Each structure stands twice: as structure tokens, then as C-alpha cells.
């Protein structure tokens, strides 16, 4: 299928194909090297990184739900300096775009973390996480108001010159408004959706299952909500959209692109099939060939009648 062009662009970031891995679901990529040829993945977004090390939340952090799962990891990571010193030298060797998901608890900490990652020449972009539902301070708090989102993006934009993707929270009344706000502050792209805030209760123990009570819902269960939001944001902003939320196969990925996504992220599916990413890449190529298309970019927003 050499006649099929899978390349897609997020701002100035050129991806060999539209399939990336979602932060926190693919480790640093290296954990999956036994299962997939990492160089065949469009991009790897490594786990949420903060300025200071974080222990994350207490166990239990996970609950299985109907076609989905809840997690409340809470951004456990060893901090940006550890990443720069110990992880970066390894991941930079991976022959694909490696992005870092950046989180913080104030515009300043977000910006400082981004500034340090900007110095890493082989990290062409960051994904700004203003939507983590599992940390008290910061995280989702910024992502659920236009002002909060704008304040973080403004600070990071001033500190980070490369491609800036802002990951949006679905736990809002109008995700289109949030998307417009971050676009106005100079974000190069938005990615959506982060997890839906949910909860699981153990009926026998009569207590919440997760250590902090609530957690973030991911998996096929949330796909209809994610598709709807990508659809709405596509009509609201001009910057590219990275779509995610319950993608399990190539058909799901195609649906997100038809709704308006320029690229997609595969998250929870990596837990069920560690080799799913490359299968999705191949499946998208098959779809394009079957439909007589030559470029994956023809799919972007194609389900919108008015465009």
C-alpha cells in the first residue's frame, strides 16, 4: 500500500501516521517494545510529567467498569529532571515522534516544566494536561473554566516555542468554549477527551472502590461522548484536533478522524492488546485503500456535511 499517504500534521509537527499513544497508557514506549515495532507508531506521548516528583494516590487506583475502567493514579512520576536525565536518553532513540505530557499545579510550575522539556531537542512537542481529574490541586481545576485554561496555556506558550497540544477535560458544560479559549492563547492543537470523572462502589463493603473515591473513566464506554466532543470542537476552532476516548480498532480511529480529528491517541486499548497500535495503523491504511483514498488527511472532518 505504498500508494497510501498516512502522514498527518499537528501544527509544525509532522507525524508518519495519525496513531499516537495516550499518556499514561504506554509507559515510555519501551515497555511495549517486545510487542510492537515502536518506529511504526505515529507518536508516543509519555506519561504525565511534573516539575517535582509525585507519589500519586494510594492504592487501589483502578476499577473495572462496563466496557471501561476507572483510574485515580494521580500523576505519579519522578519529576521532569529525572525524565531529562534518565528517561530522555532512552526514549530519544525511538524512531518516532516522542511527546511529553506535562502537568502542574500552577501556571508557573506548568511553564517551568515545559521550559525544561523545551531544551530536549528530540522532543518536538508537549501535551499540556489541564484535565487530570485525579489530583486535588491543579489538573482538572484549570481545565474546566475558560479563564483557568487560558491562564495555563498563556504561561506555557511564553515558555515553550515548539508544538503545544492542550489536552481538554470532558467534564465541562461546553468543551467548545474551552477549546476556543486555549486556541486564543496560542495553543497549536487540542487533544480530547481526557477521562470522564466517574466512580465505582463496592456494594458488599459499602465503600468506594478507589482510594480517593472518584476516578477517570476511559475505554469504549466513553467513545460516544468523545466523538461528540471532537465533532463539536471541530466546528469551534481552526487548530488541529487529536481525538481519543475508547479507540480499540481502526474503525474507531477512522470515526474520530471523520468527526474532525487530525490524529488520534490510543489509550486503554494498549492494556487489552499491547500490539493494538500497529494494527490500527494497518487498519487505517486498509480502510483508505478500500475506499479509494490516497491520503489519511481526506478523512479529517469528512463526516461534517457542511465542509
Amino acid at each position: 500500500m505504498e500508494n497510501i499517504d498516512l502522514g498527518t500534521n499537528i501544527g509544525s509537527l509532522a507525524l508518519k501516521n495519525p496513531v499516537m499513544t495516550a499518556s499514561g497508557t504506554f509507559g515510555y514506549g519501551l515497555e511495549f517494545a517486545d510487542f510492537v515495532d515502536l518506529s511504526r507508531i505515529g507518536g508516543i506521548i509519555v506519561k504525565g510529567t511534573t516539575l517535582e516528583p509525585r507519589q500519586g494516590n494510594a492504592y487501589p487506583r483502578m476499577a473495572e467498569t462496563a466496557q471501561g475502567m476507572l483510574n485515580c493514579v494521580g500523576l505519579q512520576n519522578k519529576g521532569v529532571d529525572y525524565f531529562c536525565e534518565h528517561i530522555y536518553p532512552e526514549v530519544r532513540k525511538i524512531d518516532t515522534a516522542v511527546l511529553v505530557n506535562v502537568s502542574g499545579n500552577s501556571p508557573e510550575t506548568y511553564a517551568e516544566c515545559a521550559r525544561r522539556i523545551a531544551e530536549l531537542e528530540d522532543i518536538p512537542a508537549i501535551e499540556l494536561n489541564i484535565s487530570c481529574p485525579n489530583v486535588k490541586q491543579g489538573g482538572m481545576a484549570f481545565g474546566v473554566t475558560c479563564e483557568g485554561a487560558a491562564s495555563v496555556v498563556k504561561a506555557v506558550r511564553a515558555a515553550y516555542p515548539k508544538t503545544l497540544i492542550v489536552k481538554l477535560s470532558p467534564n465541562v458544560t461546553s468543551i467548545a468554549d474551552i477549546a476556543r479559549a486555549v486556541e486564543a492563547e496560542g495553543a497549536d492543537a487540542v487533544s480530547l477527551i481526557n477521562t470522564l470523572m466517574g466512580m465505582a462502589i463496592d456494594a458488599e463493603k459499602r465503600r468506594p472502590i478507589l482510594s480517593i473515591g472518584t476516578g477517570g473513566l476511559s475505554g469504549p464506554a466513553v467513545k460516544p461522548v468523545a466523538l461528540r466532543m471532537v465533532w463539536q470542537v471541530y466546528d469551534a476552532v481552526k487548530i488541529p484536533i487529536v481525538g481519543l476516548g475508547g479507540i480499540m480498532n481502526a474503525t474507531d480511529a477512522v470515526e474520530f478522524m471523520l468527526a474532525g480529528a487530525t490524529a488520534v491517541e490510543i489509550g486503554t486499548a494498549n492494556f487489552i492488546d499491547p500490539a493494538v497500535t500497529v494494527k490500527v495503523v494497518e487498519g487505517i491504511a486498509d480502510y483508505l485503500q478500500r475506499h479509494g483514498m490516497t491520503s489519511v488527511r481526506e478523512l479529517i472532518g469528512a463526516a461534517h456535511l457542511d465542509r
Partner: protein
Amino acid sequence: MDKMKKYILDLVVRHITQPRPGYVLLQLTDPERPLPAMLPGQFVEVRVDGSPTTFLRRPISINFVDREANELWLLVHAVGDGTRALAQLQEGAVVNIVAPLGNGFTLPTTTSERYLLVGGGVGTAPLLYMGQELLSRGCRPVFLLGARSAQDLLQLELFRAIGDVYVTTEDGSEGERGFVTQHSLWADVDATQQWRICTCGPKPMMVAVSRLAREKGLPCEASLENLMACGLGACLCCVEDTTEGHVCVCKEGPVFNVEKLKW
């Protein structure tokens, strides 16, 4: 040890038997090629097909590896929808697994080391493979197996073929009455004879065993069974709070030297 190459394998159910009501032994084989290297204490992630209420894979410890028969044994306790679906597999069915995962028990460097393998309930499963590996290394293991009552004891004859077996049951229906930590055997277990303890089972039991080992100054490894999703150290869901902070049981474990645990 987690540097061992991992595989996604489609194995075939050669035999499925019910050692006890509620438990099934899956004897899986790879018709194509030899099974990969797997260490005692490691586990596999089993994909559960055809169960609408089951979304994630199920982590299951390696019960035994029969190299001659090219068989991987999984002892499954059918407690939820996922494990019940596995218990209903037919011979010839294909089971998709990711293996091997995690680290494993520390194996002996000299034949003079003596291993006491203490298990409870279905937690005895990985001790069978561990015992076999010890025997093949010239260390005949001693098993101390606990259960609620006689009909909850699993694979006893197999354990007896590998080493000395001591039993406790809560109702006294077999072996000594009480918990494994109360067995008279412990009187002869001390540091002078290089005893090492490996334990797997309900957390309260493992905590009690590790305390006993600490009192006696014996090295002790415990195999944890935290709730997990990916099994690969990616999702950070199965963490245990250790002296080194939160670490993934699926990757740094499931076997831990109890000195690292905050027990």
C-alpha cells in the same frame, strides 16, 4: 528479571479439569513452538473473550510449566465473571495470553539453601512451579499449605511428589488445626540452616508469615496480588507502597522481599 522478553501468545486449551468445585486447572499448549522461558513467581495476563462484563485481562500466576509436554498450567479460582468465563473454556479453545510478566522468586545459588514455601488457598499455585524448579536445582523444598478445610486443599499429590508437605486447616479436617503460622514445623525452622521463606496467599496470611520470618531472622519473599490493569508497568494502577515509594507490583513484583514492604 523483568528484562525477559515478553510475548503475546495464542495458546490452546489441551486439558481443563476441576481439582475442586470452583477451581479449574487450565493446561495450555502452543501447538506451533516451544513456550518461552518463564520463571516461578511470574504471571500471565489472560484475555477473557465472550464476557460482556469483563473488559480487562486477568492476571494469573504460573502454576506449572511442563517442558516435556510444552504446557503452561494456570490454576483459576472462578470468583468473578472473568474467571468464571475462563472456567467455562472448552478443550481446543484458544486463549490469548501475555507472558511472562513480573519478576519471580529468588532461586538458590547453592544446594545448601533450604526453602520453606508457605501457601494459602489458590495462593499455593505458583509454589508448585517454584518447588519443581528448586528440586531440579538440587534443593528439595518443604511446603506448608493452609486452607479453610480439607476440601479446599489444591494439588496436594503434586506437591507431595516434589517435596515434604505439611498442612494446616482451620477446621482441622486435614493436617494440624489452625493457621500456617501456628504449625509445629516452625519450631525446627531457624536461621542456622539457611532457611528461606517464600509465601503466596491471602494478604493477612502473608503478613503473618513475614512477621514470623522476621522474628526468626529468615529472608522472606511474598508474592502480591494487587488489582492490576496492564501488567506491564504502564498504567501504574497496581502499586504497592514500599520503602522505595509506590512501585508497580506487575513490574517490580509480584514477588517482593518483605523487608521492602511496609508490613
